[in-house]
């Protein structure tokens, strides 16, 4: 949607806006481009930082990709990340969406804004601070180095965000249809399950992608609580950083593998993202 300010802007203003935007886009794309170029170089070629253009400056090769992807540990870590992130997303939605709906639609003895803030306040707690009790809890329940253990932890960290975002989305949905259904004799559960949820599908998708991306990103607990079987890709990257040092070509392939899945999800939902990130609810 073009803003009225743009329509009335002078040539110079427009030029400045474009220069700044192109600058921002170039700055954003630069690391991606650098990683892609290095991922198709041989280790020897990576020492030539100036060799940028494939086929002209150097001969591209998929050897680094082959080397990384043929490592069973990499494949296993990738699968772990997918399972843990997806599992967390499902679990967080199961717990968080009903709570968010309840806070959006009903009145409580305590102001529902305060309850929402209470959920959000747990984000203040740095995960590193509760590492010890979580670690010991995992040891006790034999959940060290398991997907279940990580899903459990990540669900705890992401629940607050899901509640806050989904509450906002439910509050944006007009209550007219819900009221009509009530008049028709639908129960509160039916209204939630058959009307409110389907009307908030885009919000649900946005929330899912955010929770998935945040879980995918997590490295501290992944490194502390997994060692082999359930090691996620982020933990693997961190481990290989300290044990193997950095070969530019391998680092680039690893970076791209780590970046691609959530970024692809982002491309699909970015049109709806504004809805999930408006945080109107906690205005107080």
């Amino acid at each position, binding site marked *: 949607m073009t803003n009225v300010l743009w329509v009335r802007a002078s040539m110079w203003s427009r030029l400045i806006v474009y220069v700044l935007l192109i600058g921002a*886009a170039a700055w954003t794309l630069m690391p991606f481009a650098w990683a892609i170029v290095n991922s198709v170089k041989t280790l020897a070629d990576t020492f030539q930082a100036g060799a940028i253009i494939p086929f002209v400056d150097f001969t591209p090769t998929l050897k680094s990709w082959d080397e990384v992807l043929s490592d069973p540990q990499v494949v296993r870590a990738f699968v772990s990340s997918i399972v843990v992130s997806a599992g967390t997303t499902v679990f967080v939605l199961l717990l968080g969406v009903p709570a968010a709906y309840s806070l959006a639609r009903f009145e409580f003895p305590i102001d529902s804004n305060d309850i929402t803030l209470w959920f959000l306040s747990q984000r203040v707690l740095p995960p590193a601070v509760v590492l010890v009790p979580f670690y010991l809890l995992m040891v006790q329940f034999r959940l060290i180095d398991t997907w279940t253990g990580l899903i459990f932890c990540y669900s705890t960290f992401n629940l607050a965000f899901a509640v806050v975002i989904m509450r906002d989305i439910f509050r944006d949905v007009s209550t007219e249809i819900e009221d009509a259904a009530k008049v028709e004799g639908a129960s509160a559960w039916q209204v939630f399950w058959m009307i409110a949820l389907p009307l908030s599908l885009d919000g649900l998708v946005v929330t899912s992608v955010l929770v998935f*991306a945040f879980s995918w990103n997590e490295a501290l607990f992944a490194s502390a609580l997994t060692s082999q079987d359930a090691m996620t890709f982020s933990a693997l*990257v961190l481990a290989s950083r*300290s044990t193997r040092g950095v070969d530019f070509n391998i680092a680039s392939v690893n970076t791209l593998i780590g970046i691609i899945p959530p970024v692809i999800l982002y491309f699909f939902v970015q049109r709806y993202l504004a809805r999930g990130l408006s945080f109107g609810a906690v205005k107080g």
Partner: protein
Amino acid sequence: MAAARISRGQYGARLKYVLLLPAVVWVVAFTFLPLVSVIRYSFAAYVLGRGITGYVGLANYIEVVNSARFWHSIMVTAIYVAVSVPVEVALGFLIAWLVHLGPPGTRTFRTIIGAPLFTMEVAIGYLGVTMFSSQGGLIAVLLAKIGIDIPWLSSAWGGLAAAIVLDIWRWTSFMFLIVLAGLGSITTELYDAAILDAKNHWQVMWRLAVPLAWPVTSIAILLRTIESLKVFAIPFALTTGGPGTSTEVFSATDYLTTIQFFDFGKGSAMGIVFLIMVSAVITVFFRQMRRRLG
């Protein structure tokens, strides 16, 4: 209206608790109870394999307060947050404003500029090594060509600066996306009015967009500050805390104390001291923001 209120009060009277309680119970069980046990461990002597062997009073705290490594990590974290968050807020707001103007190609710009939020931080830190390395790193080489030769990864300040640059790259997108959502609520009529009495484009931004987007922006600043204080992945993947422990942020120090040295008592005490400081900062910050909101 009154009738609707009354009926709503009874409607779903039980269901609303059924829907809300699981999440509340979960948070109490897995956020507040762990916090209580951290407090307990912080007063305990913990031996791996044997559990708590006794209580040692304030010994863990005294050890933490006297630990140079701990205070250094607090300083590194403070500098990190104090530099990166304001830059991310300013850049995020400015870019969101430009995209909000809606020049042709807006959607492409929006898509590209929002993407870093979805990248994996340890991967960005790892890739950062290939950009800041003095042996063929893109940024290091480019800057060296124009005479700026900084020992990025072999010095404490260089390492911290490089990590902050990467943090700004990744997290500006967060501010950008939230502010953009906030700007979306400004109606066209308001612009028409603003254009009449503003001298130029930038005045419209300062007088209209900044105040109107402030409620959402202030929440974004608060969230960004909260998250930034937990920083771990980017600096740790970039420098692993080095050279030595000079770029170690708090979360990295606590992580290593707990997982590498299995010093659970000290790790817990460290966490509590940090949490008290963080809560104080966030509370003061939050009050200030509420006051400015009016």
